[in-house]
C-alpha cells in the first residue's frame, strides 16, 4: 500500500492537469499577470502560496464545525490575511532580499481567488489531512503555471533566467544577439502574461479533448 490512497493522491495530481486552478478553473489570474515578469518572483510567489494554502486549508478544516456560517467568509479572510502577514514578517526577518523583491505581491496573496475558493469549496467540508493535500495540490498546480509563464516572460523579455544572462549581452551584441535577436519588450508587459496563459490553455486542451467545453 502506498503512502496515499488513490483518492488522496488525486487531490495532489488533479490540480496539475485536469483541474488546474489557473488553466481550468480560471482562478488566480491576476497574480499570474502581475508577478511573472521574473522567474524568481514566480518561484517565491508559488512557495508562499503553497504555505498559505496548505496551512490555511488545515486551519479552516479544523475550525469547520465551529465557524458560524453567517461570518464564514470573514473568518476565511482573517485566516488568509493572518498567514500572509506571518509569511511577510518571516521573509523580512530571514530572507530580507527576497521579501524586497516581492514587495507588495506577498500582500496580494490575500486577494488570490484560489485560496478563498479552496477554503470554501473543500476545507469547509473535509478533514484536515485531505484539506492539506488539496491545498498543496492546488498551490502546486498554480505554481507550475506561474513558473512556466515566468520562465518564458523572463527569457524572451529580458534574455535572462533568474537574473543570469542566458542569451548573451544585448548591448555588447554577444550570444544570440550577435545574430540579430532582440529582446521582446512586450513579454514584460502584463497582457503578454495573459497570452502565454492562453497558449498553455490551448496546448492543454488540444492534448486532452475531454477538457473542451461543447
Amino acid at each position: 500500500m502506498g503512502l496515499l490512497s488513490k483518492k488522496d493522491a488525486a487531490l495532489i495530481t488533479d490540480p496539475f492537469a485536469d483541474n488546474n486552478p489557473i488553466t481550468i478553473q480560471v482562478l488566480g489570474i491576476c497574480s499570474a499577470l502581475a508577478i511573472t515578469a521574473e522567474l524568481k518572483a514566480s518561484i517565491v510567489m508559488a512557495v508562499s502560496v503553497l504555505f498559505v494554502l496548505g496551512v490555511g486549508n488545515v486551519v479552516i478544516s479544523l475550525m469547520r464545525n465551529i465557524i458560524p456560517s453567517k461570518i464564514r467568509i470573514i473568518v476565511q479572510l482573517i485566516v488568509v490575511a493572518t498567514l500572509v502577514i506571518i509569511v511577510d514578517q518571516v521573509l523580512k526577518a530571514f530572507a530580507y532580499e527576497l521579501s524586497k523583491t516581492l514587495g507588495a505581491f506577498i500582500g496580494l496573496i490575500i486577494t488570490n481567488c484560489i485560496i478563498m475558493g479552496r477554503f470554501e469549496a473543500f476545507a469547509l467540508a473535509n478533514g484536515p489531512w485531505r484539506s492539506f493535500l488539496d491545498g498543496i495540490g492546488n498551490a502546486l498546480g498554480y505554481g507550475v503555471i506561474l513558473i512556466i509563464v515566468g520562465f518564458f516572460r523572463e527569457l524572451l523579455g529580458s534574455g535572462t533566467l533568474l537574473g543570469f544572462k542566458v542569451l548573451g549581452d544585448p548591448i555588447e551584441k554577444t550570444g544570440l544577439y550577435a545574430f540579430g535577436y532582440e529582446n521582446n519588450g512586450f513579454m514584460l508587459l502584463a497582457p503578454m502574461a495573459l497570452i502565454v496563459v492562453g497558449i498553455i490553455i490551448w496546448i492543454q486542451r488540444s492534448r486532452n479533448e475531454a477538457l473542451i467545453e461543447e
Partner: protein
Amino acid sequence: MSKKTDSNLYTVLFAAGMVLIVGALLAFFASALKPTIDENKRIEKQQNILYAMGVNENDETNAIFISKDKVAEVFSKYITKQLVIQGDKITEDPKAYLIDIKKEQTAEKEGKERRLPLFIGEKDGKKFYIAPIRGKGLWDAVWAYVGMDENMVVQGAYFDHKGETAGLGANIKQRFFMDDFIGEHLLKDDSFKGINISKSNNDPKNEDKTDNEVDAIAGATITGDGVSAMIKSELKKYVSFFNTLKTN
C-alpha cells in the same frame, strides 16, 4: 432546525475570540521578529552606502553587496565621517546613516528644517561623498544612495524601490541601469542640472558622460521620470555643501 453556531450570541462571541487569538498571534510574531528585521534594515543601509562608493562584491553582471558578516567592519574601515547638514550648520554624527529620509521629508513639508545626512568615504586615496535620497516611482517610493566626488560627478549609485513592476520599473536596481550613472555629471557650467533618465538617448552605451542623461529602461517611463525628479530635487540640496568644499 437551526444549528447552535447560527445564533447571534455565538457569532459575536466567536468573532471576539477570533480577534483576540489573531491579534495575540500577530503581536507575538511582530515583537519576536522586530529585532531581526531592524537589524536587517540597519545592515542594508550600510551595504547600500558602501555599494555607492564602489565597495561591493559585484560579479560580471550582478549587483552584490558586501556580505552581512563583514559589513560592520568594512563600513568602519571605509566611511571616515558621517555628517548631518541642517541649514548652514554641519555636524558629525556617527549614526547619521540611521536618519530616516522619509521622516525628514515630512518634517520639511511641515516647514521644519530638514536634516541632510552625508557620508564621507575614502578608498584608494580618493574621497567619496555619498548622499541618500528618496522620491516617488510609479507605484510607491524609490530611493537611492549616490556617491559623488567633490565636483559632483557620480562615482557610484545604488537604486532601490518599494513596489515597482518586476521586469520593468524594478530594473532600476539592476547593474545595467545603475552602472550608467558612474562618471555622469550632475553640474553643467557650474550650475546644478541633475541627471535626466532619457527615452530619447541615442547613447545606449552611455559614453557621453557630460550630457546629464542616462538611457531609460523600456516600459518604465514613469519610474524613470520619478528617478530623474528625485535626483533633481534631492541632490540639489547638497550643492551648497559642495560649494563650501571649493571655497575651502
